[in-house]
């Protein structure tokens, strides 16, 4: 399995965990009224920043742990991280899907606001679409590797 493919599986695992964790935590806080009142916007901002940082740190940490695991499994041999034109083509096709879904999420957020939805719900919709887009993009990449 090429390094790029392993990397996609790691990202998928982290993103899937993050999205489930976000929906659970955010839903819990939203229903508890954590984003209501004059401090609600600041609480929402802090919550979103925290989750965004968690995604970045989670992916980096998982990659580092993955590299260590590969190094141990291969007796210290460095993994082949070659990225060639096929990897880039597959990467591009996945990114197109990610960007499209991210854009749809932004649109969904605006629609929620336009029809009287709350700001936290709109922001949550955008975040879920962004991470969901990354997941869908990674699935497209896996299909790209499987199909050639």
């Amino acid at each position, binding site marked *: 399995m*090429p390094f790029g493919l392993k990397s996609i599986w790691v990202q998928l695992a982290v993103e899937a965990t993050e999205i489930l964790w976000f929906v659970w935590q955010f839903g819990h806080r939203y229903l508890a009224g954590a984003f209501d009142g004059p401090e609600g916007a600041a609480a929402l901002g802090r919550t979103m920043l925290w989750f965004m940082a968690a995604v970045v740190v989670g992916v980096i940490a998982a990659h580092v742990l993955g590299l260590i695991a590969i190094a141990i499994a291969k007796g210290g041999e460095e993994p*082949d991280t*070659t990225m*060639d*034109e*096929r*990897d880039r*083509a597959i990467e591009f096709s996945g990114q197109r899907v990610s960007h499209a879904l991210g854009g749809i999420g932004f649109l969904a957020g605006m629609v929620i606001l336009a029809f009287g939805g709350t700001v936290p719900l709109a922001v949550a919709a955008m975040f879920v679409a962004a991470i969901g887009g990354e997941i869908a993009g990674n699935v497209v990449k896996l299909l790209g*590797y499987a*199909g*050639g």
Partner: protein
Amino acid sequence: MVKKSKKLNIGNNIRRLRFEAGEMTQGQLAEATGVTRQTIAAIEKASYAPTLELAFLIADAFGKPLDEVFFRED
């Protein structure tokens, strides 16, 4: 309306050329051309069409002209 470009079916003789080059492995060809073994495997079974640059590099690795490595199937 955007016009779709024509799709060509492109075959290749990489498997045979590897055999003729002293049973060269996909990994050796990958190393010679700077791509992964998986990319060579995908090109060999025609599930991935290489760029013109990589196609020339593959032909160079065998010391053959491009049209001896890749050909039109239709």
